[in-house]
């Protein structure tokens, strides 16, 4: 037990902070000894008697910290509702007694950086729908758009390019943020598209800049700012077409990758999630997949060597390209389209293949 502060004489009560060194942020307050003490039932009377405040607040009108009071024998305890915040100072008050504690600062760790922005290509369609910003460690939400800027080639800021969602679209670990370009400016026939126009113009150069003032989950600034430069090109209104994909099949008995080359770059997150290799009847192979050649190719390396049995690439039709066209439907669809009526067969959701037989050994 660690005593942060004490004020004692045998008869007078003392006030102290107590914490377990293994869990320094779960500290609590004790007052003892108390003779003939009765814990008030009303919350306001309890906080008037014993309270904990973040110091200095500079504002006495602020409420004390929420927590649990308990009285056991001659000791009154207060357990804060939440762990102490690293680096903050807290002061407990009981009558004229004061005791303070400073929560230990966070441990040093390597600074977080932007590890990647997808799509990774240097030329992107002007109706691009989203960017994924990847970080090396968990980040913070709430002010993300203040740290992301889209600039023209001369450094001038592009006005209102993003759909700024207060929720912020993070992955559960908060190491990847999805940034949507304003769909109202992409979608033809809407006011923002017609009056303000698309965010990007064909043939022009842009920089997506991430400022290092963005704090990570430990409260540290990023290691450095990050810039992704690219050129906007003609819009893409075509859906991904799996029948145009090219395959490089592996050899049985090896762990060579299966390589699938798309006719265009696809959405990195969706290609990672929605493509898989299966084996009859209903097995999904374990292994590692990765994207290559600026998201225009996908490789799958199985955990175990390939067998000669029939396999298939499983293709989920929600898979999108860079502009939100999925295999099942374009981003902007014709009103009341009926694909069957148009005569086109629906694309296959499985591409069958068998690994090449292992070559006979020649002595």
């Amino acid at each position, binding site marked *: 037990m660690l005593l942060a502060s004490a004020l004692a004489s045998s008869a007078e009560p003392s006030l102290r902070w107590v914490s377990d060194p293994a869990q320094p942020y779960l500290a609590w307050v004790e007052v003892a000894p108390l003779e003939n003490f009765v814990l008030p039932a009303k*919350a306001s009377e309890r906080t008037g008697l014993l309270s904990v*405040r*973040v110091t200095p*607040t500079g504002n006495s*009108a*602020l*409420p*004390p*910290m*929420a927590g649990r009071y308990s009285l056991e024998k001659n000791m009154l305890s207060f357990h804060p*509702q*939440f762990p*102490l*915040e690293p680096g*903050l100072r*807290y002061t407990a008050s009981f009558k004229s007694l004061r005791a303070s504690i400073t929560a230990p600062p966070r441990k040093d760790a390597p600074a977080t950086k932007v590890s990647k922005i997808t799509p990774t290509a240097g030329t992107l369609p002007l109706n691009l*729908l989203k960017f994924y910003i990847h970080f090396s460690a*968990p*980040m913070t*939400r*709430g002010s993300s758009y203040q740290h992301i800027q889209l600039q023209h080639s001369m450094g001038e800021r592009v*006005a209102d390019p993003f759909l*700024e*969602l207060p*929720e912020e*679209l*993070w*992955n*559960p670990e*908060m190491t*990847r943020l*999805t940034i*949507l370009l*304003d*769909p*109202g400016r992409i*979608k033809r*026939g*809407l*006011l*923002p598209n017609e*009056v303000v126009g698309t965010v990007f113009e064909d043939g022009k150069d842009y920089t997506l800049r991430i400022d290092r003032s963005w*704090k990570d*989950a430990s409260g540290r600034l990023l290691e450095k700012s990050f810039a992704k430069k690219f050129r906007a090109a003609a819009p893409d209104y075509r859906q991904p077409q799996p029948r145009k994909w090219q395959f490089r099949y592996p050899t049985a008995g090896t762990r060579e990758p299966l390589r699938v080359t798309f006719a265009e770059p696809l959405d990195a*997150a969706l290609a990672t*999630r929605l493509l*898989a290799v299966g084996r009859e009847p209903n*097995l*999904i192979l*374990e292994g590692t997949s990765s994207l290559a050649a600026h998201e225009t190719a996908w490789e799958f390396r199985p*955990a175990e060597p390939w067998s000669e049995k029939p396999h298939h690439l499983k293709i989920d039709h*929600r898979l*999108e390209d860079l502009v939100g066209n*999925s295999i099942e*439907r374009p*981003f*902007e*669809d*014709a*009103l009341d389209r009926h694909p069957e009526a148009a005569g086109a067969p629906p694309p296959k959701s499985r591409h069958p293949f068998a690994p090449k037989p292992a070559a006979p050994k020649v002595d």
Partner: protein
Amino acid sequence: MHTAAALLAALLAAPLATGADLTASMSEGKPDLKSIGPIAFGPEGILFAADSKSAAVFAIATGDTKGVQADSLKVENLDEKIAALLGTSVEQILVSDLAVNPASGTPYLAVSRGRGPDANPVLLKVNGDGSLALVSLDKVKFSLAALPNAPADKVVGQGRRRKNARLESITDIAYTNGDVIVAGLSNEEFASSLRRIPFPFKEIGKGTSVEIFHGAHGKLETRSPVRTFTTITIENEPHLLAAYTCTPLVQFPLKSLKSGAKIRGTTLAELGNRNRPLDMIVYQQGKQTFILIANNARGIMKVTTKDITEAKGISKRVEGGKTEGLSYQTIESWKGVEQLNGYNSESAIVVQRGDPGGLSLTTMPLP
């Protein structure tokens, strides 16, 4: 969400189901909220809290079923007060929603303590004297509806499973006449998801999911996510009034939310350029119904619904880049409104960001 209409709906629903019925299938304990986003109240003090991280909606019986509402409320330095109560610094506080419990008239705030992946979800209520109180969720009656979130594929063997990076953010939630309506937006595919989940929740209430489309002028439509929505009664028929992420304001009848349905909202207005709707409410003034919309770039928009029954949808553009549709006026004096909710028949309640950047909570007479 948040409306005079929801309040009315809650009152209408009350005779159909008593509090005992609504909480009968709930269990008692501590709801394991991993995050807290939009919140809404049903009848009998039941709070619906959206937890995007758990891909679930929790129904929590707050027990706050009666009370006398203060005529007005003003809480200055709201974020500083919340930070003090939660024992942290202002920069660690995020207020994600505001809802008023129609049973007691008490405003509630959904708050995150922390901004990283380990943030604590917190529910606060605002007392009549303007003081804040933490709502203890240690021992409450609750139930939950799990929302389907595309799981990682199963793999053969004992190897490690791929982590699922997909997360659906719940952008808004409402309770109306025995149903919880939930709008979501994925961090991967660009798609709409609007679910209708009957309450009390069944064993695992996934509800009905529909695809929402938005048809622009001409011949093209997009599967558009809903940014914020509310309910409104048009010709005795409950409707959903929704603002899409691509900015149009649309309506569609609630009864069209049937399993597997493909719905195209009727466009009522285009909310304009460089402007995003954040929150909206529906209210009555005399015999007229109005919609109040908080936006990121403009003051509050007051939209008249006089022509809503005739609104067959905007089909053509008028001169000067403006659109046909419902008329509205912009009220510039309501600045920096981030959260908007009906308070009573005369007032709304808002969370506002002031010029130096701090938050306040204030009741405002309905315009």
